[in-house]
């Protein structure tokens, strides 16, 4: 508080903390006289103003107060009058209540009488109805108006139960029951009548049910009645399952007749036994179960029959687009029918069975297409094999045509299969069907299987005598081309067209990764090239073997007069191979450039002269001065090891180099197995030089070639009994003879 007060200004004349003493003191102290007098004047004026304001306020309020007092006084007198009127009103109402009670008491007796009379009237009416009931029943019965009869009976029985205690009525009851038994038999009789349709029976069923018959017995009778007709339909369908019957006729029998009848039966049955309120829940469920069993058995037979016929049809129609269209439409019709039946039956769904069937058809279709792809591929390879034999050098075209055939076949098969997913077919709306179709049938069953077939074909090719060895190389190239982009292209086009997502984890089917297929294709291709190289290398080895191994080299008694014919043959073979391999596995551009440079006449000569000038002489001199064993050992120290049967590169020069290596290395082994005299040594000198003259064209690593040739010569010298070498010019002269 103190602080608050301190906070306020005690000198503010309008503030709450105004202290007059302090104010006076302050102005006394601070103001000049004139200012003091001014302040006094203004204070006096202010005080006078305030006084007059207060006076006006007091007068105004006093007037209002007087007015209020008058009003209160007036109200007091009005209320007293109203109180008197209210007392009078309540007295009158009491009197009215009293007289009303008096009137009501007077009328009570009469009212009771009337109601008793009306009860008797009802009873009499009922009795009359009862007495008339047997006649009425009989009459309805005779008129076959069973609905009315049953209704009357049921009504009558209600009364009979009411009047149980009167024995006279018992006779009527018995009469009625007797008649009803007749009605019942009549109604039951209809079940044995084949001509009665299910709808007719439905009425009987509901009547019998209201007569309290057991629903399961009735249901069985009902279905037993329907069965022979359906079986008959089925049999006619079965007898129509032959290639002579056209598809539309068969489908008419199947969908038009059998399924329609079946749906009719199902509809009537469910109307009578399931969708009726007359039966308890339990009985309804029981009936439902019974119907399910009944329909399931029939459907199983039906679908099996359909499948056999449709698969047969698939086989025939795979190529004819008109009939295919018919087949697809038939499938759609069948599926729609099956869906319709499923909607009739709440507890069973035949759609999966139908989809199963369609999937089976689609699989069959894919299978047939796959078989066709396989056949056309085999045929294309076979033809290309013939083509290559007659027109060598057309490998690129052949390769292209095989690939084109393959892709074309696959594409057309895909288009065919795509029809199964056309949106105008009801079954293609099912997601699971579409996914399974795409993943299992198309992707795995057709595309991947086709490539897998190629892999299998390639890996068995080398064991088969049927195809030319040149085909191996062709296929190797083909596979490498396919690996490069065709697999990915085909698979992704399938995936995009059929909407399969590779990364979708939850697909229940395993998808073969493209990389696996590519890897297998690649390894098969390489294997084919390796086998090709091994076989060709061996062919050359065999020729060289003839010049060395099988001859008695000690018995040769004259100087060589030229390279041996087998050596010429080797070069011939390699020349032919080069042409062929070049058309399949051409070298890279730069390598091709060098080759063309090299093969021009002038450069060839210059190469030869350098060979003669430096390397040839150099070698000769080295052998004469050094122990040959040492010479090769020293050479080996500086040259890398030559792997003979190793990985083979996929270009012409790599392939040829590998073949040459195999031949030359075999040459070395054969030489080492022989003992020879100098003439044979000279022959080998000539042969090696001859090979050197021509082989350089085929190889991409002359170092390898020369080191192998050096080893051949070194080993020949070791295996020679009387070593004397021909001079290089002689060797060259003889080697170039007859060229």
């Amino acid at each position, binding site marked *: 508080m103190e602080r608050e007060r301190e906070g306020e200004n005690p000198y503010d004349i309008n503030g709450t903390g105004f202290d007059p003493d302090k104010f006076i003191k302050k102005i006394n102290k601070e103001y000049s006289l004139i200012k003091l007098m001014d302040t006094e004047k203004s204070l006096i004026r202010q005080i006078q103003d305030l006084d007059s304001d207060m006076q006006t306020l007091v007068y105004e309020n006093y007037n209002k107060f007087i007015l209020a007092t008058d009003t209160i006084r007036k109200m007091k007198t009005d209320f007293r009058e109203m109180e008197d009127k209210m007392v009078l009103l309540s007295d009158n109402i009491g009197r009215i209540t009293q007289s009303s009670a008096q009137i009501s008491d007077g009328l009570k007796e009469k009212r009771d009488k009337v109601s008793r009379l009306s009860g008797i009237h009802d009873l009499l009416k009922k009795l009359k109805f009862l007495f008339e009931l047997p006649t009425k029943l009989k009459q309805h019965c005779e008129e076959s108006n069973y609905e009315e009869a049953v209704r009357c009976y049921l009504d009558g029985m209600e009364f009979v139960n009411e009047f149980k205690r009167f024995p006279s009525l018992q006779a009527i009851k018995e009469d009625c029951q007797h008649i009803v038994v007749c009605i019942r038999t009549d109604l039951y009789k209809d079940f044995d009548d084949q001509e009665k349709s299910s709808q007719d029976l439905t009425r009987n069923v509901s009547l019998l049910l209201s007569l309290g018959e057991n629903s399961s017995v009735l249901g069985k009778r009902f279905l037993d009645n329907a069965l022979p007709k359906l079986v008959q339909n089925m049999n006619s369908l079965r007898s129509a399952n032959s290639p002579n019957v056209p598809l539309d006729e068969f489908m008419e029998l199947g969908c038009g007749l059998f399924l329609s009848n079946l749906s009719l039966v199902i509809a009537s049955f469910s109307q009578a036994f399931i969708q009726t309120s007359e039966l308890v829940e339990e009985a309804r469920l029981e009936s439902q179960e019974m119907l399910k069993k009944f329909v399931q058995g029939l459907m199983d037979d039906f679908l099996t029959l359909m499948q056999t016929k449709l698969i047969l049809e698939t086989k025939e129609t795979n190529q004819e687009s008109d009939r295919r269209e018919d087949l697809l439409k038939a499938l759609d019709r069948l599926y729609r029918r099956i869906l319709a039946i499923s909607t009739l039956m709440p507890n069973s769904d035949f759609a999966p069975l139908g989809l199963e069937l369609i999937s089976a058809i689609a699989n069959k279709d894919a299978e047939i297409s796959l078989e066709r792809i396989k056949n056309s591929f085999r045929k294309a390879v076979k033809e290309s094999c013939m083509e290559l034999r007659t027109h060598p050098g057309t490998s690129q075209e052949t390769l292209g045509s095989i690939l084109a055939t393959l892709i074309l076949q696959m594409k057309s098969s895909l288009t065919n299969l795509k029809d199964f997913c056309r949106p105008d077919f009801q079954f293609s709306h099912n997601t699971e069907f579409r996914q399974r179709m795409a993943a299992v049938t198309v992707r795995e069953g057709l595309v991947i299987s086709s490539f897998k077939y190629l892999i299998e074909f390639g890996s068995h090719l080398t064991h088969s005598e049927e195809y030319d060895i040149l085909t191996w190389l062709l296929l190797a190239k083909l596979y490498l081309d396919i690996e490069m982009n065709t697999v990915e292209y085909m698979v992704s086009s399938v995936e995009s067209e059929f909407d399969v997502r590779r990364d979708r984890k939850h697909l229940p089917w395993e998808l073969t990764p493209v990389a696996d297929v590519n890897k297998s294709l690649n390894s098969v291709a390489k294997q084919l090239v390796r086998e090709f190289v*091994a076989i060709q290398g*061996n062919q050359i080895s065999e020729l060289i073997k003839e010049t060395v191994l099988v001859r*008695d080299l*000690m*018995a040769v008694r004259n100087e060589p007069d030229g390279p041996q014919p087998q050596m010429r043959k080797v070069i011939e073979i390699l020349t032919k191979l080069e042409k062929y391999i070049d058309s399949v596995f051409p070298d890279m551009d730069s390598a091709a450039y060098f080759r063309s440079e090299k093969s021009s006449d002038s450069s060839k000569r210059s190469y030869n002269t350098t060979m003669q000038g430096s390397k040839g002489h150099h070698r000769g001199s080295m052998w004469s001065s050094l122990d040959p*064993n040492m010479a090769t*050992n020293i050479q*080996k120290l500086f040259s890398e*090891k030559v*792997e*003979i*049967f*190793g990985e083979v590169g996929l270009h012409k020069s790599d392939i040829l180099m590998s073949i040459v290596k195999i031949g030359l*290395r075999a040459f070395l*082994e054969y030489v*080492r197995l022989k*003992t020879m*005299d100098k003439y044979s040594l000279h022959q080998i000198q000539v042969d090696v030089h001859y090979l050197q003259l021509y082989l350089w064209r085929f190889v991409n690593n002359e170092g390898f070639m020369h080191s192998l040739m050096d080893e051949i010569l070194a080993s020949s010298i*070791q*295996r*020679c*009994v009387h*070593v004397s070498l021909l001079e290089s010019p002689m060797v060259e002269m003889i080697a170039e003879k007859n060229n």
Partner: protein
Amino acid sequence: MESSAIYGLESQGRTLCSYSTEIESVRFFVGTLSTRSEGQIHQIDFEDDLNQISRKVYKPKIGEIWQMQCAPTDNLLGLVYNQISDSSCRMKCGIWKLPSEDQSSNGGDLDPVVELELADVSENVRSLDWHSTKPQCVISYENSFAIWDVTNGHHKVKSTLNFPNLYSAKWNPHLDGNQFALISASSVTGMDLRSMKEAWKIPKAHKFQVRDVDFNPNKQYYMATCGDDCSARFWDFRNPSEPLKELMCHTHWVWRVRFNTFHDQLVLTSGSDSRVLLHSLASISSEPQGRTLFSDSEEEDRAAPAPLEDGILAKYEEHEDAVYAVEWSSYDPWIFASLSYDGRLVINRVPKSQKYKILL
């Protein structure tokens, strides 16, 4: 890897054999090959503990030695040699007696016991193979073969038969020694000694020439072949259409394949790619799978090591030229020798780790 012992011949060599009689040490014989000097036989004794080689040189005074094999009994050495004259050469074979231990310490001349020469055949000899128990050997010529009986210095031809294009012949140690295999081009034929008829035949054992055949010493009907298609194949010769296993580990012709006598899951191959390979083939060996024979030692309670898996156990690359011969020591099953054409003999051991895996 453990160090190997290397010994160099002065000339080329193609043949090597292990000494298989009494002595308790590792001993190999190596033959030399030279068209211009006489052939020598180097006796190589190997001290495993010291990793030391000592040698003796014997001179049988004949031409170069192409093949050589110790008789399993009698201290005899069978040789196939090339007799070179000025204008011709011929492959012949004969039997030499090895001197007993106490004789001259530096080797010296060897005396022939007998020359096995057929009167009516002038063909080159291709190979010689001693019977594993009897003093008999089978000799193959270019187009025929002969069984020789060499008992107590006497010798006689038991039987001969023509057989086209023969490469070599080898006894089957099983079946009471009544069978031997003949290699001809790419086929291998099993011959029955008693009937002299074909017992079995693998018509296409390899794609090209077959170079060697070796029978599994511990498992009847099982054998190995190798050849010019760079592969070694393993056969149950009752099923000649398909090999049990194929190894494609060399990059040139495979010249030798050898089962280890004691542990036949160990197989050596050598080839003209200068490599010697030691393979493990437990899956088709006589060793029971997963459990080894020698497990009764005190380490029984130790966790059994994983059984050896099939594959290459070791590569030996000490050679710089084609390796035409490789042999296990007949004394120590963990030691073997290989000989390359340039005359380098290398004695190697099975890697210790692998050895313990087999033993423990």
